[in-house]
């Protein structure tokens, strides 16, 4: 991997970097008639229309997360008792809730909450999990054994239940939900990265660095970290959707964000008792949540296939 990698929250440029990696990926790209210019985003988009949809949705979500609070027509917490429970209209695109708050503004502001939450959860678990995975993989021996048994222990638990229990223990709040989910997520990264490190460790360039008497820290940061980045990006893009979904589920159950927070799960929970009379309340927040998760999952799934040509639609030895 040459050059600097862009920061992880920018998956669109990241795909370009991934395909720019010389070797298998670029050869796969050149082999297909669909791909004209390896090294750009274009071939990834040309692979499938679903990839286009994923990139488009994710781009929209990121834009709304950045600028949503600025373009929201009303203050999301503004109570207006003269306009309670109004169905969708020109003035209130998504209708209003029982306090007359504009649901379009609330859903819009909720976008930033969900994206922020996902970024924090994944940053925490990726940093911790990756660092531990690299250390365990490079060090080996007793340290490796201890680290892996601890991750096994965490992975033996159904993650969502553990997160719910931790969130409930700490007391229901969005911060605690974020912490609980980070605790659940990191072992997956440790296991993934350690496996990568074990196979990298025997590769020539690492052996060469060792022969050149490079220190372990140097090898870990210069050689190993850069080489696990591609697979890390794929895993993160697959997990963003799940992190958002799990946060909203916990909020819906009352274990996460508390009213009056416009977090999507919390909005859906508030609208739940009005579902018979005010269907729009829970519906639009749910559509926003479903589309966002769908977008990230489409992107992650597309990237995974892109990295692993075996899974692609029409490549390899399986053509008819």
């Amino acid at each position, binding site marked *: 991997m040459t050059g600097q990698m862009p920061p992880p929250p920018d998956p669109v440029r990241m795909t370009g970097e991934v395909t720019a990696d010389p070797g298998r990926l670029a050869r796969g790209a050149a082999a297909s008639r669909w791909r004209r210019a390896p090294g750009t985003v274009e071939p990834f988009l040309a692979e499938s229309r679903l990839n286009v949809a994923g990139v488009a949705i994710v781009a929209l979500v990121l834009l709304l997360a950045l600028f949503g609070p600025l373009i929201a027509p009303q203050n999301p917490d503004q109570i207006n008792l003269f306009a309670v429970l109004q169905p969708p209209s020109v003035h209130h695109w998504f209708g209003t809730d029982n306090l007359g708050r504009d649901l379009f503004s609330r859903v819009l502001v909720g976008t930033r909450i969900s994206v922020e939450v996902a970024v924090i959860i994944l940053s925490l678990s990726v940093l911790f999990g990756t660092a531990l995975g690299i250390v365990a993989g490079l060090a080996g021996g007793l340290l490796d054994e201890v680290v892996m048994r601890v991750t096994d222990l965490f992975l*033996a638990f159904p993650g969502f239940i553990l997160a719910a*229990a931790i969130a*409930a*223990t700490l007391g229901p709040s969005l911060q605690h939900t974020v912490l609980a989910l980070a605790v659940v997520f990191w072992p997956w990264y440790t296991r993934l990265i350690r496996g990568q490190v074990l196979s990298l460790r025997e590769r020539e360039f690492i052996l060469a660095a060792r022969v050149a008497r490079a220190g372990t820290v140097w090898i870990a940061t210069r050689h190993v970290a850069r080489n696990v980045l591609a697979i890390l990006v794929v895993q993160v893009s697959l997990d963003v959707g799940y992190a958002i979904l799990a946060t909203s*589920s916990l909020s819906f*159950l009352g274990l996460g964000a508390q009213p009056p927070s416009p977090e999507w799960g919390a909005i859906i929970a508030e609208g739940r008792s009005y*579902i*018979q009379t005010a269907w729009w309340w829970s519906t639009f927040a*749910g559509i926003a949540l479903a589309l966002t*998760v769908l977008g990230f999952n489409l992107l992650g799934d597309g990237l995974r296939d892109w990295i692993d040509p075996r899974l692609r639609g029409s490549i390899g030895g399986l053509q008819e």
Partner: protein
Amino acid sequence: MGVLIARRLAFMVFVLWGITLVTFFLSRVVPGDPARLLAGPQASPLEVAHIARFYGLDDPLIVQYGRYLRNLLHGDLGFSFVTRRNVRTDIATFLPATIELAGYALVTGFLLAIVTGTVAAYRRGTSADAAGRLTAIAGLSLPVFWMALLLQLLFHTELGWLPLGGRLDPSVTPPPHITGLLTVDSLLTGNFATFINAVEHLVLPVAVLAAGVYGLMVRIMRTSVLDSLGEEYVRTAEAKGLSRWRVLRRHVLRNAMLPAVTVLGLEFGLLAAGVFVVESVFQWPGLGNYAFEAIQANDYNATMGATLVIAVLYVVINLIVDIVYLYLDPRIRYA
């Protein structure tokens, strides 16, 4: 192979011990005083202290953990402060409802995924393939609790076709307890009206849960059918002039099912999370709902018991999956 299984068993014991440790210490750092909860809001500090003494809640944590572990080994999960019953009795009451729900969801999602995954593999690169991929990702992306609400709105409130929640209408007498699964028990006793009623209550929660099962499985099925289509034995079978259907059934699917088995463990984790949410929305009297209410009421014996049972089931199912896989794949068995 014996050594492999023995090692997995030893590891399972370690994991189970770890689970008791985690659940115990999680439930004891809860803010809020269980003795106060037990004594009731009007109790004097002296009464609260008395209750704490009686239940050993003022002992050091390590002593409490030792006592908990000893009771656990005797199959005693303690006493629920909310239902005022033994947690083991509670779990025995609620577990069958969850098994029934999750079981149907697993079977439904699995069957749909086999069909979709196979079609997607045979028609790879076409719009049918893309549709399969989209539905699979959608199955994993749609928020379970939101889908549940929308389905209730559509099929109960608007159309009036299906009930809102619960396992049976209040007017319907439950069948005698044989397996605890209402659909099975009502059929065994020849009570068709009850059977129909139980099925009507199952449709919506099963549909919501099955979506996730389906989403996870389609991808695996597609990949493994693709792999097996590229194998020599499939080419041989085709060259022999066997019909396409026969090749599919006897040669392709039979081999493609193997990787699918390994996903069962993952599916269980997904179902455990789904059950937690779905039972809450559909007022399904199962273990997920029980655990959720226990967490909210600070009922730590019940919380620990339910979490422990879910975690143990998870570990045991993963062990069974591993052993089944060893058994199914002779390449590993004789290695």
